[in-house]
């Protein structure tokens, strides 16, 4: 038995129910035609669980919405969610399980790029269509791109490229980087430096362990360097702690704080006084100029009681993309879906942002806008109004040409 969105919600059930489920063999209710099965692997436990929970919630919302209408190709959708526990072995095993046992038509996942990559090897071998909603490292749509894999969130390089211009324009071109010492951090910092150099800037950088909790030594060095902008490239808890200490040390009076990716889920964990800095959001819920966004936000709040985050949007877009591609291809066959997705643009009620939002054929990356702006304490009495967009950078501009990504797309013969 796997959780299904059509029948019940994720998670909290009593032991009794679980015992009953455990005792009963898996029975699939016969309800006319077989449903379209989407398998989603995400780290519902472990340090990325908050982001994963939002992605699943977004996907589940979209499934509920579509099932009320016409589903996909007239068939109901069944979302099977599996926990990768932020562990590659488990993620790979769950992918096998979804493909071999549950015979899913499509796979989504994972928030953790390492797991997403390992999953893509499995899905590629099995020729199953695979969408990575929110794993950021470049190679997934770069040097390691695959014909069956598409990605919704940006690459790290795109986020960095989008913010650099804005930071230089507003604050100056002397940067100090605080970067986590692993592939994600290195890619991010390199992308920043490339753009910064092109604009004639200068910088100093320090690399720290991923889980650093104390930044005082590094912040002292940063203060001595007197940069215009301090770039906080850390992720998760480390990002928050770096922001807090920046504020506690009163450094906001001397330099500006900035960075690439930020998430609504993360801002909520930052104490009020430290909610500051200039960052990139990959989608934002306040877009007065786009009428569809208001309707979506209201409906989403009604359905879930929450303000949608970028992660919710990723999950929603993943499901909607499958529907759109399937309708275009008239099939759920992996290779056909893939060809249909290439250069496919999202309609306004799915894109929920200005411009033409499409999956680029050359690297299978979604060319979505990047929302650069300022984080701040909640405005008014809305606890989620913690970010103000100052500029919207088109994804294609941030991504650069396909040739630069290193992707050579090869379709099966």
């Amino acid at each position, binding site marked *: 038995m796997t959780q299904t969105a059509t029948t019940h919600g994720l998670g*909290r059930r009593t032991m009794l129910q679980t015992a009953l489920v455990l005792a009963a063999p898996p029975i699939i209710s016969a309800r006319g035609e077989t449903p379209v099965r989407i398998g989603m692997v995400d780290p*519902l*436990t*472990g*340090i990325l*669980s*908050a982001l*994963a*929970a939002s992605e699943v919630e977004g996907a589940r919302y979209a499934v509920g919405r579509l099932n009320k209408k016409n589903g996909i190709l007239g068939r109901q959708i069944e979302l099977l969610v599996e926990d990768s526990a932020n562990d590659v072995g488990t993620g790979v095993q769950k992918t096998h399980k979804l493909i071999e046992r549950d015979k899913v038509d499509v796979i989504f996942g994972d928030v953790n790029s390492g797991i997403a990559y390992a999953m893509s090897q499995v899905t590629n071998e099995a020729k199953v269509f695979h969408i990575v909603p929110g794993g950021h490292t470049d190679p997934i749509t770069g040097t390691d791109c695959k014909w069956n894999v598409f990605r919704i969130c940006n690459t790290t390089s795109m986020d960095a490229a989008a913010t650099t211009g804005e930071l230089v324009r507003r604050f100056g071109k002397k940067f100090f980087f605080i970067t986590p*010492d692993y592939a994600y951090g290195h890619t991010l910092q390199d992308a920043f430096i490339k753009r910064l150099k092109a604009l004639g800037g200068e910088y100093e950088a*320090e*690399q*720290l*362990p991923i*889980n*650093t*909790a*104390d930044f*005082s*030594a*590094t*912040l*002292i060095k940063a*203060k001595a360097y007197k940069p215009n902008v301090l770039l906080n490239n850390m992720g*998760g*808890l480390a990002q*928050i*702690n770096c922001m*807090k200490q920046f504020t*506690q*040390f*009163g*450094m906001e009076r001397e330099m500006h704080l900035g960075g690439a990716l930020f998430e609504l*889920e*993360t801002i*909520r*964990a*930052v*104490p*009020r*006084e430290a909610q500051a800095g200039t960052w990139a959001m990959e989608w934002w819920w306040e877009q007065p100029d786009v009428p569809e966004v208001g309707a979506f936000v209201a409906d989403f709040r009604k359905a879930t009681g929450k303000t949608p985050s970028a992660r919710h949007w990723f999950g929603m877009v993943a499901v909607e993309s499958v529907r759109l591609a399937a309708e275009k291809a008239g099939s759920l066959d992996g290779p056909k879906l893939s060809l249909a997705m290439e250069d496919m643009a999202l309609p306004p009620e799915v894109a929920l942002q200005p411009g033409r939002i499409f999956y680029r054929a050359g690297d299978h990356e979604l060319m979505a806008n990047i929302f650069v702006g300022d984080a701040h304490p909640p405005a008014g009495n809305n606890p989620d109004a913690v970010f103000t967009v100052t500029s919207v950078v088109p994804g294609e501009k941030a991504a650069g040409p396909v040739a630069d990504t290193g992707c050579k797309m090869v379709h099966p013969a």
Partner: protein
Amino acid sequence: MFQLVLFNVTNGLIIGAFYVLMALGLSLILNLSNVINFAHGNFLALGGYMAFVLTPYIGFWGALLVSPLLTALFGFVIERLMIRRVYGRDPVYSLLLTFGLAFIMQDACRYIWGPNGLPMNVPDLLAQPLTADLFFITWYRIFMVAIVIVAVAGLFAFLRYTRVGIRIRAGTLDLDTVNALGVNVGMLRSLNFAVGSLLAGLAGVLAAGQIGLNPNMGDDLLMPSFIAIIVGGVGSLTGTLLGGLLIGVAAALTTVVWPAASEAVIYVIMLVVLVVRPRGLLGEEGMLT
């Protein structure tokens, strides 16, 4: 450069003080009951979350006092219900038991308070830097160290001057004799476990103010605490104290020259200790070997 080194030594002592608080609790339980409490980091998280819940009602200062006591009470109950049942059995059982407990407690925190991190606000007074020159030392850090000093002094006084404390120390050396002298060893171990949990809870409140709350918050602190104990020498609380401070300072000094290695250095220290002086700085030969 000199100033930077001096600062980092200070900073290392602050971080070390934190490891000490955590490691002392672990060490107490290990010494008397021969149990490695793998769930110690989760007791820490529990202390932090309870402070988060209590702060709106009784304020930060009240929570600082009450939350560790509640953690201690929880530890006492857990010891009575479960831990005591594995005493005297192969150590594999106590390890597995606390390991399973850690899973359950982490999941419970995620279930109750959600997977998102939560900010914990400390009084404004503590969030300020000392002076403009010493901008990197906030009052909260000073406050943390002060609390740790008070707690450690309190612990050592407790062990030296109170009846229960003296019995705990005696039990660490020879539990059978203490038992033969008519001391209720079962209750002694329960109280000892509660004291260990109290320290974890206190560390949790302090950590919540410094790094915020999340269900995994204790995980990163568990290993440094193990290492503090191994480096200091199993069986010696003073050794644990020294070990914690030593690895804190070593990690901070490494940040000056090679920031990326600041986590690795504590493991290197442990290896060196194992090779050169296997019983640890102040450990006694034969203790728990």
